[in-house]
């Protein structure tokens, strides 16, 4: 009968025009999420979202889902109130339990909102396919749009229904639900998905690898919150008015049937269990970082250290076994470091089980904040033996990182991408001196191309399950492994990128760009600094989950955004995709030499990059081409800037609204970086007497530059450049020429 009741309640909703209005609003609000204005709302925090998935799915569906939650919540309250106010309830209550009607109503609303979500997903599917083009994956579209648009709505429906059941008052219900909604914008809940009950956090996600760790967390948190909302609703049903009594007297009447509370309690238990045992975040206390790193005391020696690690890419878990021969052990307790979330199944010494425990790293604030825990193995006073540790689990993100950045930059195990930090791969023993370098065997899916610290691993065995075992010999491996294409640019340089970019790379000859840039820069400025001494250079595209770019010894990594359609179409950086990509590769030189960025944007690596790109294309395609697509464009931009009223009268900017001020400042900064500075460099070139002299100045500037842009050095300034060139600021002033 209940199913029948739900059926007719659903039919009743589908006959109501308001239902279709709500559906249309749902679609409309999602559509608004595609507009620049809404995107601006989510980028105000300083993030620049460039992944196609974020732009075309996460933000629109996140916004649409939030709006839909409020729309359906409002509707469910008004519908429940209508039945009471119009007197339909008296008639319906005579025939059936009021609770059954409430259950039927909530199920019907959830079904209708599900239909609306499906329509919304289908409605925007063609648009997303068109906009995301080769970056579109149906699986990710469905999984992300669904989790962003539906669970929040269901939780809100449950909460709204519950609030109305308790208060029997539209105003009170609305007020409470709005207060609860607004509370999600507080700093406390800004990053915490478990406090964001109808607004999921907006993440910058991977187009190519799916960001499965984030996806799992999103689903998990939504399910946990849904159970909580459901428990609240099921409890609220006990407040439904009985015999025209008040809320609490009605509750007291319902208390006479304690068994009826079981579903509410079960839901509450499910929510509590999901909260308590969630595997995603390490719950160690957040403490201030300090300068003191704990040095584990010497505990003995070890040799023949070997770890074998396997992955469950569906669940995101790892399973491993670490073996080592202990020698000269001097302590009764052996300390290992292990990632929070990884459990130890057994520890044996020559087959004999040893006691062990996992504790917070109280001695070291920094490790505590990094989500590293202590594994203490009790040594039965033995000096030697074969130690085996079997471990596994879901690597947790550190609590401090979660509190500051949300669920980002976490370790991740997925079908298309695996990223694991040192203590994730295998327990580390800081107090044991390894006589010989350890061997770590990583078994990744057959189509993966793994690396540790950017270095290629040695392929060993193809396993029966299709995975391939790769071997690395690192004390502290950091694994990046994805489904990538591998192009050997030349004998020295290797370029790894996601399969999705295959066509873009081929069509735009991006691999050639690397060759062109490296050939030019090596010849004119000197060898790539961080690659000095390395056997080769591996340029690897990594998942957006980890953001940005960086370099190690012979290793360059850059996130997906460097190859994104927006990045490759940025005409500030080059005349076409090939040249824009050249610009990014040139950053390996000018970005990494520690170029100081001036406040006015008149001195930055960007300007040096654009100038270098111009020089490369001039050499490659001739002066006419370079003049047309670079110099003329810069000149036009600067002319345009000089004509701008606010550029000429910056004193008036301050009276504009903040958003206008920011837009003008951004535009000024952009033109300074990408047009004015290259023109100034061109002027310097002219003053110096030609390209050869200019190259000599730039070579010296590059040589003086720091190896690492993150080492805290200030970097080369405009004054450094002028000093080397023997010029003054006035010498390179361009406004009078223009």
């Amino acid at each position, binding site marked *: 009968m209940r199913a029948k009741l739900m059926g007719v309640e659903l039919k009743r909703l589908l006959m*109501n025009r308001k239902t279709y209005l709500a559906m249309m609003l749902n679609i409309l609000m999602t559509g608004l999420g595609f507009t620049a204005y809404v995107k601006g709302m989510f980028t105000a925090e300083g993030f620049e979202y460039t992944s196609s998935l974020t732009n075309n799915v996460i933000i629109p569906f996140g916004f649409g889902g939030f709006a839909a939650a409020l729309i359906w919540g409002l509707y469910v309250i008004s519908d429940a109130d209508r039945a009471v106010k119009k007197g339909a309830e008296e008639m319906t209550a005579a025939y059936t339990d009021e609770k059954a009607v409430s259950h039927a109503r909530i199920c019907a609303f959830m079904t209708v909102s599900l239909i609306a979500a499906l329509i919304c997903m289908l409605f925007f599917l063609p648009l997303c396919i068109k906009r995301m083009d080769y970056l579109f994956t149906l699986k990710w579209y469905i999984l992300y749009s669904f989790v962003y648009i539906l669970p929040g709505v269901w939780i809100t429906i449950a909460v709204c229904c519950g609030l109305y059941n308790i208060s029997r008052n539209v105003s009170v219900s609305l007020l409470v639900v709005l207060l609860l909604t607004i509370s999600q914008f507080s700093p406390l809940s800004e990053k915490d998905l478990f406090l964001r009950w109808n607004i999921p956090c907006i993440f910058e996600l991977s187009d190519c690898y799916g960001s499965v760790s984030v996806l799992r967390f999103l689903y998990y948190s939504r399910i946990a919150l849904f159970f909580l909302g459901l428990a609240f609703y099921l409890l609220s049903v006990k407040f439904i008015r009985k015999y025209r009594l008040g809320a609490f007297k009605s509750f007291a009447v319902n208390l006479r049937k304690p068994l009826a509370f079981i579903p509410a309690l079960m839901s509450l238990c499910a929510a509590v269990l999901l909260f308590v045992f969630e595997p995603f975040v390490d719950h160690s206390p957040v403490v201030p970082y300090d300068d003191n790193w704990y040095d584990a005391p010497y505990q003995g020696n070890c040799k023949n250290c070997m770890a074998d690690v396997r992955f469950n890419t569906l669940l995101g878990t790892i399973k491993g076994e670490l073996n080592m021969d202990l020698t000269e052990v001097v302590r009764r307790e052996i300390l290992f470091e292990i990632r929070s979330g990884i459990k130890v199944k057994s520890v044996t010494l020559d087959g004999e089980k040893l006691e062990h425990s996992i504790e917070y790293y109280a001695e070291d604030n920094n490790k505590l904040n990094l989500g590293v825990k202590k594994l203490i193995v009790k040594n039965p006073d033995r000096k030697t033996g074969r130690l085996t540790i079997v471990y596994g689990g879901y690597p947790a993100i550190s609590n401090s990182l979660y509190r500051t950045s949300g669920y980002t930059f976490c370790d991740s195990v997925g079908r298309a991408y695996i990223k694991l930090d040192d203590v994730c791969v295998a327990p580390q023993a800081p107090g044991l001196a390894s006589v010989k370098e350890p061997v770590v065997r990583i078994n990744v899916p057959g189509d993966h191309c793994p690396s540790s610290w950017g270095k290629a691993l040695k392929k060993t065995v193809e396993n029966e399950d299709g995975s391939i075992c790769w071997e690395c010999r690192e004390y502290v491996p950091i694994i990046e492994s994805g489904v990538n294409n591998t192009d050997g640019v030349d004998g020295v340089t290797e370029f790894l990128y996601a399969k999705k970019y295959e066509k873009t790379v081929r069509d735009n000859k991006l691999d050639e760009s690397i060759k062109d840039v490296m050939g030019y820069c090596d010849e004119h400025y000197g060898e790539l600094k961080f690659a000095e001494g390395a056997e080769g250079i591996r340029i690897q595209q990594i998942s957006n989950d980890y953001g940005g770019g960086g370099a190690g010894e012979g290793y360059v990594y850059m996130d997906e955004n460097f190859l994104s359609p927006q990045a490759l179409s940025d005409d500030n950086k080059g005349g076409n995709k090939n040249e824009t990509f050249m610009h990014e590769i040139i950053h390996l030189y000018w970005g990494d030499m520690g170029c100081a960025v001036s406040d006015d944007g008149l001195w930055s690596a960007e300007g040096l990059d654009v100038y270098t790109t111009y020089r490369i294309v001039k050499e490659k395609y001739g002066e006419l081409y370079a003049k047309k697509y670079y110099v003329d464009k810069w000149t036009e931009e600067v002319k345009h800037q000089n004509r701008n009223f606010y550029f000429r009268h910056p004193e008036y900017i301050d009276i504009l609204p903040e958003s206008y001020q920011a837009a003008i400042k951004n535009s000024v900064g952009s033109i300074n970086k990408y047009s004015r500075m290259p023109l100034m460099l061109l002027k310097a070139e002219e003053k110096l007497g030609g390209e050869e002299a200019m190259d000599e100045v730039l070579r010296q500037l590059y040589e003086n530059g720091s190896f690492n842009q993150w080492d805290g050095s200030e970097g080369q300034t405009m004054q450094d450049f002028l000093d080397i060139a023997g010029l003054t600021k006035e010498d390179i002033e361009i406004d009078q020429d223009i």
Partner: protein
Amino acid sequence: MKIDVKNVTMIYSSGRKALSDVSFSLKSPEFVGILGPNGAGKSTLMKLMTAGLKETKGEILLDDKKLLDQEQKLKSRLGYLPQTFGLFDELTVWQFLDYMAALKGIKDKAEIEWAMEQTGLVDRRKIRVGNLSGGQKQRVGIAQAIMGHPELMILDEPTVGLDPEERVRFRNIFSEMSSERIVFLSTHIVDDVQAVCNRVLVIYGGSILFDGSPAGLIEQTVDHVGSYIRKVDDILPKDCEIVSKINTRNGVLTRIVAKELPDYVDRCEPSLEDAYLYCIHNSVKREDEHEG
């Protein structure tokens, strides 16, 4: 089916006493009409009998067991038309009845068809409830109440808003249905009760004043109903209730009920309306004397 209302008193949370020590029994088959002025406690009594309210004192038994302990049993056997009710305007007549059928646990669609036939709604089946007239909405209300041939039908002023022809038709339908079930009907229209009810309850001020057959109620009024031609300056006889006034050439033909009729008043044969008014009149008088 049997319902026993035993010494039921109902006091609302506002402190208003709606029923006072009310007792009566209903046994199937029976057609019981309940008469009483506005605020007498009819609707409260009906809500108590549908488990919509909980009595302050006393108890209501359904087949000798507490009604509130067997709400599901009651709900599955009930047809109820409240005095005021709202319908879901967005649904068509058929959809609304289908919705109510689901609530009542009726699986057979023929029941919906039958109820529509009985209430003359067959040609209105696809019309949205919101587009119906007041009388048509009342018919939809009646249709949902009779649907499923419930064992107990509680109808609170079901013929309000219906034209005389429809009123007669419906009271005949209720009468037919009462041959196999309890029909408990509240109305202001005394003629309806006289025409179809085999038992009448008169309620006033929360108390049952009379419980018996309509003929029994009329019997009590013999020699207490009369008429006379009243001139303009004539004083109204003491302690009487005017039933009707008709203007004639000789004066106003006035029909009254009173405990003691003056000599100049001609005795008349009482109707149920006279009897009802006499019953209420006596009660008011007793109250006044009590207060005095």
